[in-house]
């Protein structure tokens, strides 16, 4: 049996699964401290199912702690940024495009934390830009040590093509600064595009003190509940990482919330290829599942004013949720919402604000609050309002899909009562059981993945050989991450020839996923 937990901004949701069977679910308020809500949720599903803590074999947690720390600019460690690439890249030093508030949070407005531009790095085809200057790096290490900095981000030009410079620099920093200093290397974090990859790496390094604290706290919470099973955290792409990995790559949890909802929708509906509409109180988040995994965003994502390019799902948010303010003449829904005050302000809860939830109740789609309070609404106007919601959702879903092939749409989340069975252009609309806790279900799905994403030289006539080698590499990466050999499959392939560049240079991205090998991990931990 395993427990999936999703720690959101408002609610902490938990589920207990035995194989494919959902034994218990719970929604409880998220607490300001790390552990309170988790302990409450774990105890609730154990009590609800009657399962013994010792029967739990794994616990998976999806958390917003790390992305919230960045958004709030709090709990971030002073971080040194070291870039390898001179003489190139000097025109834009690290963190040039950051908001001043976050630069300050990382110690870069006062000089408390330093930035270093050093020699090294590679060309697009793997040649060196300049040799690594080891003395220069030792001097940088001395500067870092002198300021008492304990988190260091290292980025090297074209490290997704060749990681040699970053790895050698890491050896030097480890030797000079000792094990207590965190090193984040950009080739392990992001993809081609130096500034957004470097930004994500710096954010990761700044979160690593917090990651140690949070992972310890989660472990402590499970111990309190009597659970000794291994703990995993959800990543942006829907796969899992163990606690050792989570301590080193906290940034990989940033988008796990929407990812877990989508993965849970796939699990609950039994579909691997579908559109997912996750409706909360204020927004509907719409994404596409391919092979059971969310399609990833191709470009850059801005988080708290910082441009990054790590792996996150391609999600479009529409300002329609259960708490959206509704007008009936003419029909207009959202984007303003009563949010978490739904249970005080909506008509069905005795308030005086007409919300989208009131329309769903008036139309008989949901039994929430007091239906008598919306009985006065004109049934035609209510239907027109719900059709308006359906039309806007359908247009957004259509915008997200990648081909004209018909795909089913799955609605999950507490606000998914707004979605009826009719979505223009989508004949197959489903709302599976346990839809309200799809995010916690998604967290409990035990799969791990590997990715290759870089620029390959593809000589004429050798495309298949290059692709095969890249696929093998992705499969090995998944196995290294803990997948049971033999279960790994390729889930996504993308090839884009680079513009204005002769010679067959092609950016290839391949994702591979397999089942988590719990036995192997248990024996490794034993």
């Amino acid at each position: 049996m395993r427990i999936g937990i999703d720690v959101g901004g408002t609610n902490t949701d938990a589920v207990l699964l035995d194989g494919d069977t959902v034994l218990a679910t719970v929604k409880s308020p998220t607490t300001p401290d790390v552990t309170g809500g988790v302990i409450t949720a774990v105890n609730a599903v154990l009590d609800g199912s009657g399962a013994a803590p010792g029967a739990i074999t794994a616990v998976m947690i999806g958390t917003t702690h790390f992305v919230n720390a960045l958004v709030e600019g709090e709990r971030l460690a002073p971080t040194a940024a070291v870039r390898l690439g001179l003489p190139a890249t000097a025109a834009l030093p690290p963190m040039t495009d950051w908001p001043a508030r976050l630069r300050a949070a990382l110690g870069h407005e006062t000089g408390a934390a330093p930035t270093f531009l050093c020699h090294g790095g590679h060309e697009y085809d793997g040649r060196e830009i300049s040799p690594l200057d080891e003395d220069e790096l030792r001097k940088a290490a001395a500067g870092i040590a002198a300021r008492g900095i304990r988190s260091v981000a290292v980025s090297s030009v074209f490290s997704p093509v060749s990681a040699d410079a970053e790895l050698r620099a890491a050896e030097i920093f480890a030797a000079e600064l000792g094990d207590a200093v965190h090193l984040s290397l950009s080739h392990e974090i992001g993809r081609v595009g130096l500034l957004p990859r470097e930004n994500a790496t710096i954010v990761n390094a700044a979160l690593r003190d917090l990651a140690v604290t949070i992972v310890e706290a989660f472990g402590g919470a499970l111990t309190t509940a009597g659970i000794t099973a291994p703990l995993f955290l959800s990543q942006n792409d829907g796969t899992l990482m163990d606690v050792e990995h989570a301590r080193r790559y906290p940034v990989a949890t940033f988008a796990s919330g929407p990812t877990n909802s989508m993965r849970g929708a796939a699990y609950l509906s039994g579909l691997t290829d579908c559109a997912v509409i996750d409706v909360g109180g204020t927004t509907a988040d719409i994404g596409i599942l391919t092979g059971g995994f969310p399609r990833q965003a191709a470009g850059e994502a801005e988080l708290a004013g910082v441009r990054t390019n790590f792996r996150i799902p391609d999600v479009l948010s529409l300002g329609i949720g259960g708490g959206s303010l509704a007008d009936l003449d003419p029909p207009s829904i959202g984007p303003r919402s009563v949010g978490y005050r739904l249970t005080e302000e909506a008509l069905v809860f005795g308030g005086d604000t007409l919300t989208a939830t009131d329309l769903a109740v008036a139309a008989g789609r949901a039994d929430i609050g007091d239906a008598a309070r919306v009985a006065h609404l004109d049934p035609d106007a209510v239907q027109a309002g719900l059709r308006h919601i359906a039309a806007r959702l359908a247009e957004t879903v259509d915008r997200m899909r990648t081909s004209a092939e018909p795909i089913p749409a799955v609605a999950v989340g507490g606000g998914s009562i707004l979605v009826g069975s009719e979505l223009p252009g989508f004949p197959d609309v489903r709302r599976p059981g346990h839809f309200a806790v799809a995010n916690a279900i998604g967290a409990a799905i035990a799969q791990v993945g590997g990715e290759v994403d870089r620029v390959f030289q593809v000589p004429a006539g050798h495309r298949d050989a290059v692709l095969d080698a890249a696929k093998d590499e992705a499969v090995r990466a998944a196995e290294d991450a803990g997948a049971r050999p033999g279960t790994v499959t390729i889930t996504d392939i993308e090839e884009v020839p680079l513009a204005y560049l002769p010679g067959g240079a092609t950016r290839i991205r391949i994702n591979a996923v397999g089942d988590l090998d719990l036995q192997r991990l248990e024996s490794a931990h034993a």
Partner: protein
Amino acid sequence: MREIHPEHLDDMARGAGILGTGGGGDPYVGKLLAQHAIREHGPVTVVDIHEVPPDATVVAISGMGAPTVSLEKIPAGTEEVTALRALERFLGRQATHLVPIEVGGLNSMTPFIAAARTRLPVVDGDAMGRAFPEAQMVLPGLIGVTVAPMAVADDKGNTLVLETVSNLWSERLARTACVEMGCSVSCADTVMRGDQLADGLVPATLTLAEDLGRTVREARAAHGDPVAAAARLLGGVRLLTGKVADVQRRTSGGFARGQARLDGLGGDDGRSLELSFQNEHLLARRDGEIVATTPDLICVLDTDSGEPVTTEGLRYGLRVTVLGVPCDPRWLTPGGLELAGPRYFGYDTDHVSLNR
């Protein structure tokens, strides 16, 4: 004459992206580079073509290579000035003004990096009025101005100065060197006298790019129609509003070639438009009939936001509006069409005038 400060470049870069007709590279990093240079060295003066003295020495500054590479290997910041100085040594005289080679995309920003560092003014105009992929595709060529002597510099300080027998040779040799130098170099070339600018350049295109970017931004902020606002400003023709229904890409001859099919929405319901692109959008066929070709500008914009959609960014489901915008009339002369007409890009058709 006016001063360009960092904040002006936000609008200019947005407009330059639209004038890039799907190519030219994302101006974002170019804008950051230019803004950083201006903050360090002070504002840049932009002058109108008629403000340039007849005997001025005007040099075009541009980047060559793959935009994807320059997003990863950020420049040293010295490349433009290194190329300029190498060209000046060859010429035996100093440049008095700089000018962009193309207003479309990344290269609209490049001269500002050199101008901030050298304190030279930038001429408000460019040699294309849009973006094109190759060095010989410039209007000054039509009045006998050669690309060479052409100086090329990389991030390491390597430079070369090319003397060539034709503009096509300048393109070939510089492109080969560019690949060897790491696929991202800066060029100083196409030397003009002040009295050649009226005939050689498309005038006031930097101002056009800035106006365009501001118009789109303001229309968006007012919840208006940014695409209609852009079309009005550019004197463009709306060819189709629809959604991308199919995208096919293949690589041949070292360049990515592709086609996209757009299905009409709203008033265009039932119509379809086929878009042919290489690095830029080059040909548009509506319901089987050719309605726009290079060298006219085929701008694909996100219907809601007015943001340009690049050839690399085309994907199924995008809601886009395709605009045909008349090119500078000199591109429609026999010499202009030979350089940049549809046949040069391998399409078996003559140029078709935009139906206004």
